[in-house]
């Protein structure tokens, strides 16, 4: 979001190589028995969450964050007129829940994401006072329940203080999966 594009592009190449190597070694690794979870929610400035979740027997297989998957979703077709193409992408990608994009688009895409990544569970991390996400949560939870995908909710502050408590809750959730 804020890095120089040239520098960022170089980093992405290296990360991609690294991830491919990890994927190859993972084929023979025992961690494939790990529980597969998806993180869903608003802007997530709480980077320790990845270590906290993966310190349990769970692995994060995808995310549905405003600052994650939904930020990078959809490509701008570069062969077309750029301004309409950029505008088109804003309309096509999964929108911020403060805007309207159908009544079930968010639950449909979350369940598809979970199925595509064979997720065992979803952890919602909602930034306190981000109302659009808080309003969507009961519906998303009910649809995940109907699809047989367990979910838990953690409301987080911008500056997370109680990591230990959150870790205990996530451990309990992962054990339940």
């Amino acid at each position, binding site marked *: 979001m804020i890095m120089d594009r040239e520098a960022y592009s170089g980093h992405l190449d290296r990360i991609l190589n690294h991830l491919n190597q990890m994927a190859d070694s993972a084929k023979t690794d025992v961690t494939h028995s790990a529980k597969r979870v998806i993180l869903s929610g608003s802007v997530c400035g709480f980077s320790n969450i990845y270590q906290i979740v993966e310190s349990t027997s769970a692995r994060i297989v995808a995310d549905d964050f405003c600052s994650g998957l939904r930020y990078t979703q959809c490509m701008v077709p570069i062969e077309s007129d750029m301004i309409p193409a950029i505008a088109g992408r804003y309309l096509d990608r999964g929108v911020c*829940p*403060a*805007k*309207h994009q159908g*009544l*079930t688009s968010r639950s449909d895409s979350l369940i598809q994401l979970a199925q595509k990544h064979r997720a065992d569970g979803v952890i919602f991390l*909602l930034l*306190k*006072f981000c*109302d*659009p996400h*808080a*309003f*969507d*949560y*009961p*519906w998303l*939870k009910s649809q995940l329940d109907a699809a047989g995908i367990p979910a838990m*909710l953690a*409301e987080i502050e911008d500056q997370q203080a109680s990591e230990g408590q959150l870790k205990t809750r996530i451990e309990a959730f992962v054990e339940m999966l």
Partner: protein
Amino acid sequence: MTAYYIDAKTAADTGKKVAWITSSGPVEPLIAMDVIPVYPENHGTMIGASKMGVDLCEKAEAMGYSRDMCSYARADIACSPTNGGPIGGLPRPDMLVCCNNICGTVLKWYEIQARYYDVPLFILDTPVIHTTFSEAARTYVRHQVADYIVFLETCCQKKMDRDRMAEVGRLSIQEQKLWQSVLDTAVNRPAPMSAFDAFFHLALIVTLRGTQTAIDYYTLLLQEMRERIDAGIGAVPVERWHLLWDNLPVWYKTKWLSDTFASREACLVADTYTSAWCSSLQYMDETDFLTSMADGYSRIYLNLGVDQMADTVIGMIDHYGVQGLVMHSNRSCKPYSLGQYDIQKIVQKKRGIPTLIIEADMVDARNFSEAQIETRIDAFMEMLTP
């Protein structure tokens, strides 16, 4: 109002269609199409005033809704599956009409209800006017108004009678003028009515806008206010201080607040809330109501940038000659409360009058601390100067 609610509650028997609509939403086309408009926010008001808010908010929290969210929305959402509240729940909607000129909350609230009742939802998106209402924004909203008419014609399976629409538009503008005249009577000394009276009489301009009933009501009310002015009858027994209220009322504490201020010889002569139902009158065109709706529904108080809101507040301070400003920082209503500290500073700088911020909530009484607020009111009253 009782007749209106009986009409709405029995719509299924009389074959009339019911639309749920946001409080500052474009209701006139519904009236013109003989659809009964029902206001979940007005429902929230009744829930708050009948002190049923906490119970219903707790039910919504048990359904998974965060306590930080709007208490109107929580209370209304909890009423749907439980038929709770003072009138046993609202009549089932045939369609939902959501205009986001007041907040983004209504969008999520109406999405939830559209899924629950499985009915069509129309969204009128009015971009926030941070500085000026651009031509692009005007065109965008006008297109949606045209879409809105098509939506209604599809839901009702009949064409809109344009003559009837024009007539409803004329009535609506006439009512808004009447309502403004009623509010304006509070410039008199003693003021024949207070903001607490306005909170009550507001019901019709919200729910029955565009009908003859509202015209008759406000004509009568205006006449009564003029009689009170002539007779020198004030809203409070002793009127020494004149104050302006900002934000929604605290519905479960209106009497207490009214008594508390009255006993300190203060009359809240005006408020930014009830005046919002005639705040865009200057942009409404009686001869072409539908076209002027884009401006009329976009340029309301809550859809403006903070600088323009502050200008409105200062205009009211001057018009009503108040010596102090009371601001309700309403935990439920974030768009109303977000800019208040800035508006407070602007008012203090430009008019130098004392200001008081009361932290509370319009429906959820768990966020009201009576003793604390009374102490703050006392401290504020000491700061007032004639």
